[in-house]
């Protein structure tokens, strides 16, 4: 299929009313979920996933992408109006957004957040369209050893940057890999860790694991400490943004978009570091740098651009290599799997129409976000008032129905509950959940590629260092481990120095 044919067929898929309607619905769900304090974009995408079973692949995937995009923007609304970021990445938006709201300029802050989000999202989608196809074509040259080293590299970064400690990230990833071995071994046809249960022979259901891991710990946290939301919702005030204000922030928006694209395309980095880096770069370069933190509109623009700039770029490793860059794209991979599609280089060859339909849909999502976001900003008061003691039981009911619907299996509901307990324990013990989930998804692929490589080389391990691509990935893995360890040690040194300076001077007992 030529590029033109694929593009035309993709356009025909998106140009149906169902596709656009579900994309818009997804954005609306995402914005509302992101705006509810206590909900997150991740939880929203996870809970929406079971509803896509009955849909066409394109409508289901567009619905989820809409929830993802809407959720990321939605997180900025409570960050600005009640200083409660809906997503971790929105914390940077609160730095200047909330002081603006205190000054009666919440409407202006939200308008700027919306424009910056839409522009950054558009830039990120363009980057995806330009890079993903090229990268997928390059990845067609990858054999099993190259894929094995690529997955090792991706898991190393995800384990290293997802939490406070590389070791804890590595332990989480190892548990994810171990859980992925449960079920029938596809080479020998023998069982591994099934404990005689026929339900476990097909392995643990990925959607039950992810919903348990990301939705239930929030419920346990709420039950342990059922707090009502504190603080009032600030009034919107004037929401008109002048041309000068927009022009003054445009440079920061474009810079933030570029930072978001770069950081989003590296597996594991995510939106939060991108938003903070974009914010600090804007503060460094701005003539109004002394106003940052006190209600500077450029700060809101930079943070939101950095935050939303990752949204399209995280799909680059997912679509072109089959590697989920963060937790949300790991969930979106589930939507592909449900419909029998495997993200990766072959997706561009076998389902080019679907890929182009997604690209066109993503561009449309930037425009739809502009309209839906405008209404969401004005309707936030009703969303913010949803009491958490009704919200979390609703989430639990949604989880039970959604997980059961995957395989009509009550066993899957049990798996979800056990994973919820495990996720809560990980939360308490400061183990990041992202490496666990991504390792669980990539585990079978990692083992498969390892075994294929061993078959190719008849058991010789040097197959993993024979080609230039594998050597590059090993070098990148070593470099990322060194950088992560160095940054961890530097942070520990700073903490030690802070502790020394905060300690009172010792007084001699003899003196």
């Amino acid at each position, binding site marked *: 299929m030529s590029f033109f044919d694929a593009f035309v067929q993709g356009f025909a898929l998106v140009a149906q009313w169902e596709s656009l309607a579900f994309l818009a619905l997804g954005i609306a769900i995402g914005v509302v979920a992101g705006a509810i304090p206590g909900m997150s974009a991740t939880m929203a995408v996870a809970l929406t996933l079971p*509803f896509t*079973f*009955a849909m066409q692949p394109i409508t289901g995937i567009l619905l989820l992408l809409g929830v993802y995009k809407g959720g990321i923007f939605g997180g900025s609304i409570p960050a600005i109006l009640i200083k409660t970021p809906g997503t971790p990445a929105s914390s940077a938006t609160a730095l200047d957004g909330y002081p603006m709201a205190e000054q009666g300029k919440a409407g202006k802050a939200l308008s700027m957040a919306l424009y910056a989000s839409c522009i950054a999202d558009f830039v990120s989608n363009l980057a995806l369209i330009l890079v993903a196809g090229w990268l997928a074509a390059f990845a067609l040259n990858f054999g099993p050893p190259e894929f094995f080293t690529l997955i090792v590299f991706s898991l190393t970064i995800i384990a290293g940057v997802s939490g406070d400690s590389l*070791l*804890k990230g*590595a*332990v989480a990833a*190892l*548990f994810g*890999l*171990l859980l992925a*071995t449960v079920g029938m*071994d596809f*080479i*020998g*046809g*023998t069982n*591994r*860790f*099934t404990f005689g249960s026929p339900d476990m022979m097909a392995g643990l259901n990925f959607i039950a694991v992810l919903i348990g891991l990301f939705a239930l710990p929030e*419920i*346990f946290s*709420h*039950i*342990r*400490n059922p707090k009502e939301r504190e603080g009032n919702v600030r009034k919107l005030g004037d929401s008109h943004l002048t041309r000068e204000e927009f022009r003054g922030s445009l440079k920061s928006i474009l810079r933030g978009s570029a930072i978001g694209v770069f950081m989003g395309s590296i597996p594991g980095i995510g939106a939060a570091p991108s938003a903070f880096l974009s914010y600090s770069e804007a503060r460094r370069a701005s003539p109004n740098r002394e106003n940052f933190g006190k209600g500077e509109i450029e700060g809101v623009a930079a943070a939101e651009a950095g935050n939303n700039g990752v949204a399209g770029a995280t799909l680059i490793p997912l679509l072109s290599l089959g590697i989920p860059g963060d937790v949300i794209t790991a969930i979106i991979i589930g939507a592909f799997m449900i419909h029998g599609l495997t993200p990766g280089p072959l997706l561009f060859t076998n389902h080019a129409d679907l890929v182009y339909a997604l690209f066109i849909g993503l561009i449309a999502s930037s425009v739809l976000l502009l309209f839906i976001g405008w209404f969401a900003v004005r309707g936030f008061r009703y969303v913010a008032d949803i*009491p958490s*003691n*009704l919200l*979390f*039981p*609703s989430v*639990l*009911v*949604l989880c*039970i*129905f959604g997980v*059961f*619907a995957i395989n*009509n299996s*009550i066993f899957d*509901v*049990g798996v979800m*509950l056990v994973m*919820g*307990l495990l996720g809560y324990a990980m939360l*308490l*013990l*400061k183990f990041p959940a992202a490496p666990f989930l991504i390792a669980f998804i990539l585990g079978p692929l990692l*083992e498969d590629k*390892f*075994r294929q490589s*061993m*078959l190719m080389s*008849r*058991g010789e391990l040097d197959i993993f260092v024979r080609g230039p691509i594998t050597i590059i990935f090993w070098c990148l893995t070593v470099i990322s481990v060194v950088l992560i360890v160095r940054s961890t040690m530097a942070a520990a040194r700073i*903490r*030690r120095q802070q*502790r020394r300076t*905060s300690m009172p001077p010792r007084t001699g007992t003899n003196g």
Partner: protein
Amino acid sequence: MLARRDEIIVGIVILCFGVLLLTVLIPNYVEVPRRVRLLALAPYFWPNIIGALLVLCGGLLAVRAYFTPPTPPEQTESLAISQPEALRLAGTLLLLVATLFALPRLGMVWTTMITFVAMVLLTGGKRLVWAIVVAVLLPLVLYIFFYKIAGVAIPQGRFVRLP
């Protein structure tokens, strides 16, 4: 950040789990085919690698925590749990186990209605009237979507069946 003592315990627990995996779980719960062409293709090869790495990481976590100076109490997150919190969490655990067992017997709609109200009561029982309204409507809406539209055979239970 956790207290140093807690970090050491976490490291030791992971190390012990790794040892348990290598010595008990893999030998007993990984079936081996009669003939294995290559060691790397054996079903126990990959779990063994994971077990060995868990032992290594658990050991490193414990050693690192042991040699790290103690964190000041104001920066330490305590794992201690108050009695009301423990009771609420234990109640939730019981509720979830009961829900799981009730799903095939009572049916998903009725079970989730009861679970919803029970959870609201566990967290203080505020807005009980609203809770009952949502508890009835939400499972019914989900039932209509999954059963009537998506064609999922939602468990109906043995007592009251929905149309």
